[in-house]
């Protein structure tokens, strides 16, 4: 262990002696942990395939409606194309992201942050701030157009969905992620 100057205080030395009494042997988890993880991973994979197949196989549109939908999709692509050129959006000048304000009411919270796919699900998240001390926390972030999943992190530990989100999805752990649809900027 690397010693810091403050490790040399009597208090630190006393604590060092105490902590040495703790068991530092490696902990080997039972093999059931690996089995359970891989079973859940396979189930996750299977559910993705089943959902994909169900989506492909499900009859949804009449030929006429499918034709109209195809025409609408092409028109939409043509409309969007000038706005979303090929390339990496994050390398652009910033015009390919949209400012989004996230708001969360938590009068009792000591801290609120937001994490999601746009933050690589970083558990520390992007901090929100209170402007008036009234429990209304907010942050403005730049997001690329599209669907984003996110949750708020209250007091650094509690993950909570956004009650104002338009929809939610199951996170696979008995809780829910909020869903945010960020529309593209209108061409000026």
């Amino acid at each position, binding site marked *: 262990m690397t010693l810091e100057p403050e490790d040399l205080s009597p208090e630190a030395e006393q604590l060092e002696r105490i902590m040495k009494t703790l068991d530092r042997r490696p902990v080997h988890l039972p093999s059931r*942990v690996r089995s359970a993880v891989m079973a859940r991973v396979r189930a996750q994979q299977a559910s993705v395939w089943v959902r994909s197949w169900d989506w492909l196989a499900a009859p949804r549109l009449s030929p006429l409606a499918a034709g109209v939908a195809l025409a609408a999709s092409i028109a939409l692509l043509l409309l969007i194309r000038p706005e979303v050129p090929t390339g990496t959006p994050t390398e652009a000048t910033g015009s390919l992201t949209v400012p989004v304000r996230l708001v969360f009411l938590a009068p009792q919270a000591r801290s609120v942050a937001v994490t999601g796919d746009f933050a690589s699900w970083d558990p520390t998240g992007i901090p929100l701030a209170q402007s008036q001390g009234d429990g209304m926390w907010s942050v403005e972030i730049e997001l690329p157009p599209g669907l984003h999943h996110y949750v708020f992190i209250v007091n650094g530990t509690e993950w909570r969905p956004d009650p104002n989100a338009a929809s939610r999805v199951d996170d696979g752990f008995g809780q829910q992620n909020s869903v945010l649809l960020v529309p593209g900027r209108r061409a000026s």
Partner: protein
Amino acid sequence: MNGGPSDAEVIARVLGGDTELFGILVDRYQDEFARYAKYMTGSEDDAADVIQDSLVRAYRSLRRCGDPESFKGWLFRIVSNQCKTHLARRRRRRLEPLADEAEEVPSSADPAADAEGADLRRKVHQALQELPTDQREALVLKYVEELSLPEMARLLSASVSALKMRLLRGRRELLAKLQGVLT
């Protein structure tokens, strides 16, 4: 890491559809963070649950791991967060933390000393469980996992000065809780 594909290579293969290779990452890291999780949650059973959930969460978010070469640090932050979520849920259920630490250390030729040592270990373990989570985490990483302050700062995304403060407060609180125990 000794031989074998790098984390980044494994992640690329898993994301390419070779799901079973995720088992390599499970084998590589499930025990690596188990001791930390045990000291954070107070028991090996809870640590097993936390590690299991963390690994599954990591799999589900694998595409969002910004830097596959830093998978270990990214996974640690998921484990750390899961420990805190686990503790918050337990507090809500008003369950007391478990303290099964003391009985596991091998015995020596001196049963009286063993019993005394086991008693002290149990009390230290219990006092550690009563500390605020961030202080306990700092003490566990420094004294059990034996990490340096810069290593802790990298893992926890915190500044060295903030960690020094957590350690200082943690030391004082722990010593205060053990006042009657220490001679």
